């Protein structure tokens, strides 16, 4: 067993020297992700609010103005402009200055009065599906509410009342939803790049060729290279979690130690991806290209932005092969839902299995493509 990992200590020690010699790498790997976190954490709000709206109020009487106030008070719509004809209403939407156009016809108040069914036209720009969905929901709800209010006698109770209760993130705060997922992407980013670079650099310099002529074994070499970056990745994780808790005030409902423990297999996976990348890439720019190839699936198929359950079958199955899927389940589980070992051990195990598999594949590829090339 010892023999299989021969050279591990020497490589590990040397690698930490490289890291110490090059503080800029350390800076970029620790500080840049925190900056990204700040930008995304403060800058992105996944709740649809204050959608730019243009209104053509052909009626103009009190009832129509009340309707407009209700729309405005919903917080979903921000009324940018009032126009006086249909053409301007259309133009505003086509030009992208408004996503929603509302036209109240000239007979709105009259029809309300005579109870002949008032109609309001709502034009919605479908280019962003989540905005469109929200606009449909809110306008329909307001319409329904207005109708009921007119039909029912005052203070009577509804026959059926739904009482939605949002667990874990009651205020629907975006950082709470966003940051645990972002952790997965940031860690992947840092660790994959660092390992890939550290190996590709040795390829470029020719030191790898030199190393192969020594008794060092591939696994010893790879693990020696991997471990220092595992430490950096873990430090990064601690910084991210601290930031998340104290800067963004995301409450952590579960056990932080468990989060640390279950992050190890994920770090192991992303480091192994880095090694795999480096076994293919011959220069640092090639390594960047290849590493990006692994990022996009981690962002789009992991449930980080889009829920996995709504994906077409093929991509849903694909998402099971994306390590970030498991890790995002772990981070959201522990941080938001207070989940523990009992609920998440399978995800951790899956990550560990993927990591071991990747490392063995990477070591074999190394043997074949790099040493014997």
């Amino acid at each position: 067993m010892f023999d299989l990992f021969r050279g591990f200590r020497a490589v590990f020690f040397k690698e930490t020297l490289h890291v110490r010699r090059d503080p800029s790498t350390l800076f970029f790997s620790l500080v840049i992700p925190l900056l990204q976190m700040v930008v995304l954490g403060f800058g992105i709000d996944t709740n649809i609010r204050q959608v730019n709206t243009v209104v053509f109020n052909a009626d103009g009487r009190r009832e129509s103005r009340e309707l407009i106030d209700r729309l405005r008070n919903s917080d979903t719509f921000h009324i940018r402009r009032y126009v006086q004809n249909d053409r301007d209403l259309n133009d505003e939407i086509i030009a992208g200055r408004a996503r929603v156009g509302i036209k109240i016809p000239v007979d709105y108040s009259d029809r309300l009065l005579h109870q002949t069914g008032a109609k309001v036209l709502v034009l919605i720009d479908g280019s962003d599906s989540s905005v469109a969905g929200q606009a449909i929901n809110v306008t329909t709800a307001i319409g329904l509410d207005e109708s009921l209010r007119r039909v029912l006698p005052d203070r009577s109770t509804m026959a059926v009342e739904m009482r939605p209760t949002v667990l874990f993130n009651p205020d629907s705060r975006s950082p709470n939803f966003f940051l645990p997922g972002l952790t997965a992407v940031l860690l992947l980013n840092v660790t994959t790049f660092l390992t890939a670079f550290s190996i590709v650099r040795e390829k470029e310099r020719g030191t790898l060729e030199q190393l192969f002529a020594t008794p060092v074994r591939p696994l010893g070499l790879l693990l020696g290279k991997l471990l220092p970056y595992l430490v950096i990745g873990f430090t990064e994780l601690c910084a991210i979690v601290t930031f998340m808790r104290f800067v963004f005030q995301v409450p952590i409902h579960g056990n932080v130690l468990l989060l640390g423990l279950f992050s190890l297999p994920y770090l192991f996976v992303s480091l192994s991806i880095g090694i795999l990348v480096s076994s293919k890439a011959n220069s640092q720019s090639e390594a960047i290209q290849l590493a990006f190839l692994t990022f996009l699936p981690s962002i789009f198929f992991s449930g980080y932005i889009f829920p996995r359950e709504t994906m077409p079958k093929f991509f849903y199955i694909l998402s099971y092969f994306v390590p970030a899927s498991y890790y995002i389940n772990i981070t959201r589980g522990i941080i938001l839902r207070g989940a523990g070992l009992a609920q998440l051990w399978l995800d951790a195990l899956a990550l560990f299995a993927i990591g071991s598999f990747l490392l063995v594949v990477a070591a074999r590829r190394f043997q074949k493509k790099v040493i014997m090339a």
Partner: protein
Amino acid sequence: MALATQSNGVAISAEHLVRRFGQVTAVNDVSFQVQRGEIFGFLGPNGSGKTTVIKMLTGLLPLTSGEAHVEGLDVRTDPEAVRQNIGYMSQRFSLYDDLTVTENLQFYGRIYGLPPDRLKRRMDEIIQLNSLEPYLNRLAAQLSGGWKQRLALGCAMLHEPKLLFLDEPTAGIDPVARRQLWDLLFELSGHGITFFVTTHYMDEAERCSHVAYIYYGRLIADGTPNSLRELPDVQPHGTMRIEITTPEVTRALRFARQLPGIRSATIFGQSIHALVEEHFDLNDLREQLLKNGITVGEIRPLAPSLEDVFVELTYKHQAETEAVRV
């Protein structure tokens, strides 16, 4: 094991080495032996299979067929032990630029698993031998080519290998450093260390105690420099080599090539090397050149250089392969 190598004194024995990459045969039936303490010069044009042979001998590349023993160890069954017993210095003095001289040495010492006290002793010896003392805390990146090469050699020797592979050890370093390196190699080979050296410099090949020339996967010369010079293919029976010194080499060459009795002629700096019939009259040649208005310095018989040897053998090999194809 150690006994076996000492008794027969063979450091490397390669028998019918073959390596194919798909359809391409990179190394084709190559056999040679290197004795202990030899400086073995391994020459050949780029892409002719030199690096492939080194990789096979260091156990990095499996043999398609044939067998090889290095320091008595079978490279097919015991590649790790082979690598523990050899030193290797790659073409580009592959050091870690951002580590100091000391750190580079320490790293390779650990890689070879030297215990701390032995590592310390060996580092002192290596530093002494290569005069690295003043540079210990300098980053490898700040060393000049010659010093980098000394450090790289030091790294390859830390674990006291009895056999060192040096892949173009003098490429890109200045002449003084080159001379010093060779002096060091001679000194070490005097202590029984064997060197396997690849080079493009013919003057370095002349200094080796044993040279081999590989041409597109085939070994076409193998022996001491002197024995190669006397090969019948190089020095055909009834011929001799001469050197004609003249300031007008191009005109002289054109003229000489059409003379009967001159088999071949090439320019070497300010002189012409020619292969001529044994009974060729040198005085007559001088007169003919002068008659044509070509100033002539000295004309004298010449032993073939190794370059001559390799050129002749390459021609012969090409002719043979052509013949086989037809």
